[in-house]
């Protein structure tokens, strides 16, 4: 009897042990696979096969990539410890520091090529955007040989639909800027736009004034070329699909409606931040942005009565804007990938 009992009790114990062992093996396997995928995100030569399918420049329109969620910018800034100053990447030649006004692509005045098609045939759709692998300005310049000094590009085979100045308000975000340039130059070239990149750098430690920098960008870009469209972009926003054309439309357009950091839905209905497009006429009609709306940059910035200021900008539109814009131009630097305009914008009055 006892032996029988022992016999019948040993059976379930054995199969339970076996099941547990299988489970442990499965979990170990799972962990190994996870580790493998983690490592393949790093820069190991063995796994370059996978990384070849990453972001490609114009022309190489393979099957559209599957969209992956874009990492928040917080982990991105911890990826690379040192923020390089542009001066170290590319030594700007002093004699080329200032550029005379452009007249457009040379030698094509008589026979204008046909208008570029809308939409562009070079678009690939969803893009694979990540901020783990470091990027550097030299390799970006190498990957984009058709760019002219100051981050200018004009399509050769057709006449661009619009002349677009991309204005980026900036201060001490060099790493973000590098990623921005890495993704946006191929993106904008695929959209066959006649564009230029203008980074408006606020000098000094005073509260960041995004709106005033955008006004300055508008004015300074127009001194160089007769842009008819202005795209205002934060330095830390990358589009995830190149069918989101960075040009102007019949009404001012909000180009960053779905952002990963807001769960791909608008954080609130009135939100117009991030990336927006206004034509020259539209911008002039609203007298640009308010100069006196200071503050708003994040947890570390000093807030200066920000909510009161927002509430009043509708009333002050006619007196506070382009027509009252005052600033001191400190430096214009023409780098291969962008024009950096450093300004002193004063302080909150």
């Amino acid at each position, binding site marked *: 009897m006892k032996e029988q009992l022992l016999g019948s009790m040993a059976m379930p114990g054995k199969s339970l042990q076996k099941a547990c062992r299988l489970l*442990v093996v499965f979990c170990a396997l799972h962990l190994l696979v996870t580790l493998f995928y983690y490592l393949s995100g790093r820069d190991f030569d063995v796994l370059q096969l996978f990384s070849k399918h990453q972001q490609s420049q114009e022309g190489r329109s393979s099957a559209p990539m599957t969209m992956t969620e874009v990492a928040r910018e917080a982990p991105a800034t911890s990826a690379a410890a040192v923020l390089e100053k542009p001066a170290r990447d590319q030594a700007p030649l002093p004699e080329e520091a200032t550029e005379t006004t452009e007249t457009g692509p040379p030698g094509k005045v008589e026979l204008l090529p046909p208008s570029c098609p809308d939409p562009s045939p070079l678009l690939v759709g969803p893009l694979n955007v990540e901020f783990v692998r470091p990027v550097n300005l030299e390799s970006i310049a190498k990957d984009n040989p058709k760019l002219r000094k100051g981050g200018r590009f004009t399509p050769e085979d057709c006449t661009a639909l619009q002349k677009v100045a991309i204005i980026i308000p900036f201060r001490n975000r060099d790493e973000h800027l590098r990623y921005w340039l890495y993704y946006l130059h191929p993106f904008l070239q695929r959209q066959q736009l006649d564009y230029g990149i203008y980074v408006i750098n606020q000098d000094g430690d005073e509260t960041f004034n995004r709106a005033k920098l955008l006004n300055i960008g508008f004015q300074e870009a127009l001194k160089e070329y007769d842009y008819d469209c202005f795209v205002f972009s934060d330095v830390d926003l990358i589009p995830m699909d190149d069918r989101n054309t960075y040009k102007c439309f019949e009404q001012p357009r909000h180009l960053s409606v779905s952002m990963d950091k807001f*769960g791909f839905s608008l*954080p*609130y*209905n*009135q939100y117009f931040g991030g990336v927006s497009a206004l034509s020259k006429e539209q911008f002039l009609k609203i007298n640009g942005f308010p100069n006196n709306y200071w503050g708003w940059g994040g*947890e*570390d*910035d*000093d*807030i*200066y*009565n*920000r*909510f*009161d200021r*927002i*509430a009043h900008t509708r009333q002050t539109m006619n007196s506070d804007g382009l027509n009252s814009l005052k600033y001191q131009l400190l430096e214009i630097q023409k780098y291969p990938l962008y024009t950096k305009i450093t300004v002193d914008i004063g302080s909150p009055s």
Partner: protein
Amino acid sequence: MMSLLPLLLLGIVFPATQAIQFKKCELSQIFKEEGMEKYFPLPELICTVFHISGFETETKVNNKGHQEYGIFQISNNGWCAEKEEDITKSVCGILCTKLLDDDITDDIACAKKILQLPKRLDYWKAHKTFCRKDLDQWNC
């Protein structure tokens, strides 16, 4: 094999102790459960909280020399206390840093106290600026 168990448990527990960013309807539900609706209409509350802290429990902002803490951005300017000995002098009777943890029952209790004072939700400037119309977007 068994010696790995505590390590495994630690691996599960660790992510659970980081800061919370609530979703709109998550926070709405918590406010309902905590009886916030008796103090102020919910859509205006949710809208205001969104604009001041983005529903993040760890939000800490410097505003004209004073620090504001947590999901309700309670200021150390008499509303919460920086030091133990000042706790009884503060309106909410709480240490400011306690407003940064995952448990928002103390944040809610403090907000309730403020909502009973004369200016009510207008103590938070965002209310007047952002949250007086177009409130449907804050329903759940």
